[in-house]
């Protein structure tokens, strides 16, 4: 009884601002639309078009690709960073301080930060200038900006921390004497990493994966900015439709995206009990 009262605010917020909107989206995905308005209807046109278009598959594939590449990179970087913080930084104060240092850039609006990549990565940007000055290249590298490279760079920039935190959390729960036991058993540093730390960090990796994958799959603004609108993912498809007032079509795409994400996450959740591992 008290439990319900305590859970009530969360429940209400989620019902009103999560479940109801999802319901609404599902309903609207069957509606019709014309130039200027949407009208209640029950038709499968939106889905028919969605599944009938070759673009849909291409864009979903692109979305998965972004998710996958970003995941791999954030995992590699995030794991290394978390490993450093957890096992090489000894005092807790330092750990907190270094963490805070990592979070500060996030207080500057994402959009401002994305705009600022352009002078950095652009044809005449700092990166190219430096490389030319060092004599490493003669021609500016075109693919630094407005490319998959820049999109993924921005994703990694934005989301690595979401990987670091859960992995760090799990690593801090590893009993230090296990590492000594491994060393005692003749394991080299690398073997300890592979045979002891990595398996024990799996839950954290899973949770981080959930964060990163969903964030990347749902993104639209990063892809738009960093690819110079040249690439598309599902989020952009939806936001374009919204921009053009094609709500039912956007809703249909959204339903498919949501299902995809939920299935992916559902699979990941089979491997980890989030509540226990925190």
């Amino acid at each position: 009884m008290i439990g319900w009262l305590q859970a009530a605010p969360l429940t209400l917020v989620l019902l009103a601002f999560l479940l109801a909107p999802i319901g609404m989206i599902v309903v609207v995905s069957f509606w019709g639309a014309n130039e200027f308005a949407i009208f209640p209807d029950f038709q499968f046109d939106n889905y028919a078009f969605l599944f009938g278009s070759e673009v849909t598959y291409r864009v979903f594939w692109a979305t998965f690709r972004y998710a996958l590449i970003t995941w791999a990179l954030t995992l590699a970087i995030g794991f290394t960073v978390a490993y450093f913080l957890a096992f090489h930084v000894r005092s807790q104060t330092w750990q907190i301080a270094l963490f805070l240092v990592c979070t500060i850039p996030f207080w500057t609006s994402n959009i401002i930060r994305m705009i600022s990549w352009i002078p950095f990565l652009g044809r005449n940007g700092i990166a190219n200038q430096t490389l030319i000055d060092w004599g490493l290249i003669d021609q500016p590298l075109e693919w630094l900006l407005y490319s998959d490279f820049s999109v993924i760079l921005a994703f990694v920039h934005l989301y690595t921390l979401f990987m670091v935190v859960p992995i760090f959390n799990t690593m801090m729960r590893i009993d230090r004497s296990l590492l000594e036991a491994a060393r005692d058993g003749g394991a080299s540093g690398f073997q300890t990493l592979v045979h002891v730390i990595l398996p024990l960090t799996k839950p954290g990796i899973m949770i981080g994966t959930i964060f990163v994958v969903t964030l990347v799959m749902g993104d639209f603004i990063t892809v738009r900015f960093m690819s110079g609108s040249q690439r598309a993912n599902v989020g952009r498809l939806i936001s374009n439709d919204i921009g053009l007032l094609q709500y039912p079509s956007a809703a249909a795409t959204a339903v498919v995206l949501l299902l995809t994400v939920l299935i992916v996450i559902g699979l990941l959740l089979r491997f980890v009990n989030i509540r226990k591992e925190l």
Partner: protein
Amino acid sequence: MEKRPFSFYALAAFFALFVLFLYGPTITIGILSFQGPQGGLTFPMRGVSLHWFRDLFQEQAVGDIWGAFGRSLALGLMVMVATVVFSVMAGLAFRKRFLGSGALFYLAITSLVIPSILISLGVGLIFNQLGLKVHWATSGFGSQLTWTLPFGLLIMFAVFNRFDKSFEEAARDQGATSWQTIRHVVLPIIAPSLIGVALFGFTLSYDEFARTLLTAGSYNTLPLEVFGMTTNVTSPVIYALGTLTTIFSFAIIGVFLLSAWVMARRRARRGSDAGRGV
């Protein structure tokens, strides 16, 4: 001091590179915010000046930075308070099983992984269909909560997983009512983590773009405003804003660390017998 192994220096270097990467845009922003009055958003620098900082406090050609900042701050604080309060309550609720707790948990996870644009779309649609006015303080607030609450809840799981139940039993034994137990024992003990939840809630809200896109109503929050400003000539003013934000964050964190340090010092002066056999 123990001699550090080689891996420490390698990892520290990696970490430094990671931080540099995180700060790449921040640094670019920092440099460009000192553009001369003729300068633009990109390199090269056209002189060095404080022009744009001064300009920041004057009215812009387009948009209302400080109004938007005020709204974002207010919204951020609202979200922060609500996130702390609701997630603590929910965290308390989840310590016992209650009917529907499983469903609520999965709902929260869904809320975490649902692409943000869908919330924006759905909430916008619902308000539209119900004939309600969207406003940053109602629909925008709710939409952002669907993002911050699951995070808050996860942190609370982590906190309560480590919380020793015997504190509460001791309090009840001492005649505290359930409310007194929470007020005088549970909350003070978990207070440091609550600061974490609060910071997290504020940061997520302050930088949230997608979820407010269709739910903010007449007035823009800061990210939306910055985005809107890009429909006219954007000047390095937004960089000046970014730089100020960063400096401000550093200041806050500096104060925070300093007070933590002072407190530790003061305690240390009073001595400790911990671990001594007396």
